[in-house]
């Protein structure tokens, strides 16, 4: 498990990619909350020609040096990435080309220009060209300590910026009008956010490459979003997921036997996607699995309350046959359901197949009936709904009305004693 850190060859790639993914996850959250995640994809593709051109220009004047390349490439990538950013804005403003078309056009064109230049230096400066390939899909394996230092410092800058500007960013992203009203320089902060995006992308493309970079912006943000609504937690969790994905991606790639060797970049992205899916499925409140469970639980409660109501109306005795006559339920399921209600204390077994309401059961049933009839009165008296229609709505609302709402209704309606069908409303004491 700790092998990547202990092994001298694997140390730099793992730590390097972890730092890069830290930066990209943080900034990814910032674009995610603006609903502009796809901008990251365009900017990362737009960074590619910068990589190539900077390599080309450097090759003309300097001798081959990997550390120099690492720095120069960052500068070049940043320049073309920002150029892409302003080009998109220009196209949208001046020619009224809509967002998606501008993004797609810029990303494909810039990449094409990049590939054009790449094909040139493939012949003229082959050694430098090999360095450029690293940025297409990323290549962490050849990273060394020098790279880690560079990327570490840059990632730290990103973290610092986000921490310092946190409150402004919070205000800007969630209540723009308020921010403007207190005099915040919103346009400046917007620009800074997008510049930061370009910066983070440029840092990250060494690890996952230009094509997959947007994955490392989006996937950690999605994973974090399912777990929290607060921006501070979003940032923290996204960073955590990003770093973990980088770590596990490296671990997996190094652990695989040689015939299954896969590039690290895609592995990191797939791990990050895995985290996102797990989070979306199993997150405590918003996870899909939990949502289904909650819905199922509510359905069970509702069914139980309906049975109690039916029993109360039929003189506190109920049998399976009577229930099935009213609600479409499976007989076997009903048998277990009755047993469960007995266990919970709402029913007691009278004779075989016949159950009696307990005291608690009676009170609960009366409460449901009270809520049902109160709601009918409300609809009939206040909203003018005809008496035939009120029953359906009340059948749904009786399970949902809270005690507070019940009090308010009772107050509003003057504590009525009969419903629109002239049936008595139980006074209903609380359980």
């Amino acid at each position, binding site marked *: 498990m700790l092998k990547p850190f202990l092994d001298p060859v694997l140390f730099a790639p793992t730590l390097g990619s972890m730092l890069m993914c830290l930066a990209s996850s943080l900034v990814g959250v910032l674009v*995610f909350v603006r609903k502009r995640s796809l901008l990251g994809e365009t900017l990362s593709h737009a960074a590619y020609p910068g990589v190539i051109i900077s390599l080309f220009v450097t090759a003309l004047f300097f001798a081959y040096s990997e550390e120099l390349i690492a720095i120069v490439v960052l500068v070049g990538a940043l320049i073309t990435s920002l150029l892409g950013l302003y080009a998109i804005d220009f196209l949208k403003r001046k020619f009224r080309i809509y967002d998606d078309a501008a993004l797609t056009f810029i990303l*494909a*064109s810039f990449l094409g220009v990049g590939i054009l230049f790449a094909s040139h230096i493939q012949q003229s400066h082959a050694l430098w060209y090999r360095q450029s390939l690293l940025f297409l899909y990323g290549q962490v394996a050849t990273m060394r300590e020098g790279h880690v230092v560079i990327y570490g410092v840059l990632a730290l800058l990103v973290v610092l910026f986000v921490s310092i500007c946190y409150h402004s960013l919070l205000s800007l992203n969630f209540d723009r009008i308020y921010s403007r009203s207190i005099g915040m320089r919103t346009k400046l902060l917007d620009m800074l956010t997008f510049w930061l995006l370009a910066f983070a992308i440029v840092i990250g493309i060494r690890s996952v490459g230009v094509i997959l970079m947007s994955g490392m912006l989006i996937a950690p943000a999605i994973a974090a979003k399912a777990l929290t609504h607060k921006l501070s937690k979003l940032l923290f969790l996204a960073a955590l997921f990003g770093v973990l994905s980088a770590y596990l991606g490296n671990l997996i790639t190094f652990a695989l036997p040689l015939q299954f060797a896969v590039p690290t970049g895609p592995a990191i992205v797939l791990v990050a996607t895995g985290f996102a899916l797990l989070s979306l499925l199993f997150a405590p409140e918003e996870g899909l699995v939990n949502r289904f469970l909650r819905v199922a639980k509510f359905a069970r409660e509702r069914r139980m309350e309906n049975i109690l109501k039916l029993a109360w109306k039929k003189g506190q005795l109920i049998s399976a046959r009577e229930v099935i006559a009213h609600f479409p339920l499976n007989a076997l399921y009903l048998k277990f359901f009755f047993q469960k209600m007995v266990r919970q204390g709402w029913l007691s077994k009278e004779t075989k197949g016949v159950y009696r309401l307990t005291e608690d059961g009676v009170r609960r049933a009366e409460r449901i009936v009270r809520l049902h009839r109160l709601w009918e009165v409300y609809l009939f008296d206040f909203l003018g709904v005809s008496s035939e229609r009120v029953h359906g709505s009340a059948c749904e609302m009786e399970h949902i009305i809270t005690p507070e709402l019940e009090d308010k209704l009772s107050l509003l309606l003057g504590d009525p004693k009969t419903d629109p069908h002239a049936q008595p409303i139980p006074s209903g004491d609380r359980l």
Partner: protein
Amino acid sequence: MNPYWGQSFFSFFPLFFYRMGLLLTGRLSLSELAPDELQIFALSLIGFSCAIVGTFLVVRKMTMLANSLSHTILVGIVIAFLVCQPFVGKEGGPLFLNLGSLLIASLFTALLTSFLTEGMVKVFKVQEDASIGLVFTSLFALGVILVTLFTRNAHIGAEIIMGNIDAVGFKDIKLLLWIFLANLLLLLLFGSRMVITSFDERFAKTVGISLALFHYLMMIQVAATSIGGFRAVGVVMILALFTAPILTARFFTNKIFPTIFLSGFISFIGALAAVASSRSLLSNFEMALSTSGLFVALLFLFFILTAMVKCIQFRRRKSHEYSLSCRLR
């Protein structure tokens, strides 16, 4: 012996048209065609298909979907390749698809992408832009891993992005021709309905035109065109062919069919110029540039030039109007 070797950029064109004339009158046989000409055919056919499909993509604001599909086709190609390979054998090199596999791949890709994206939005309740991004990057990552595992070709990664126009042969051109004809047929049959569903959904519904049908048909067309073109220009640059000529053509017209024709024409000129410059640079200056890269860069250049001309025109007209209005006072 390549007849285009040593030609300058400008002498390329007359030679090309002369040889095309020979071809049409039967004095030049298909097997005598130079690789340059094959490349021009291939790129033009891709360009024409993309003009048809791309116009509707831009108009329907579906370019992000095309973006998504262009990445996910990698998975579709790999899976179709794995499924069909036992039946057709290895022909045409790595990841070559014949017509049958192409159809399966496009269908599979289009359905998979739309299913996953809509699933993420509706079931998992993730915002739309993030869903699109997650689906296509994860599928692309998966595709890269599968490709690396199954082809054992270290350079396949670069080929996926850049394409390998030099490996284009007759089989590819036949495939591209079929794709173009299919797109053309669909345009002729359903063109008016496509226009209606693009611009006026309510009206389409009232006359009973199925919106979903044309949406999914469009997705399959995009997938098929992208897969057809990926061998020549690579996965991402096909997007340039979907957008650049159309955006350029829109400076001149805002009607659908003229846009299609004009985009096709622009692509054709771009293809000619790309191959011509590639060949002349190679033979005269010993600069080997990627033809597909040149193609995309030229289309980009066309857009920039047209935009600049339009800007200047606009400014001149504005100042002319202004000076006129001054005089009238």
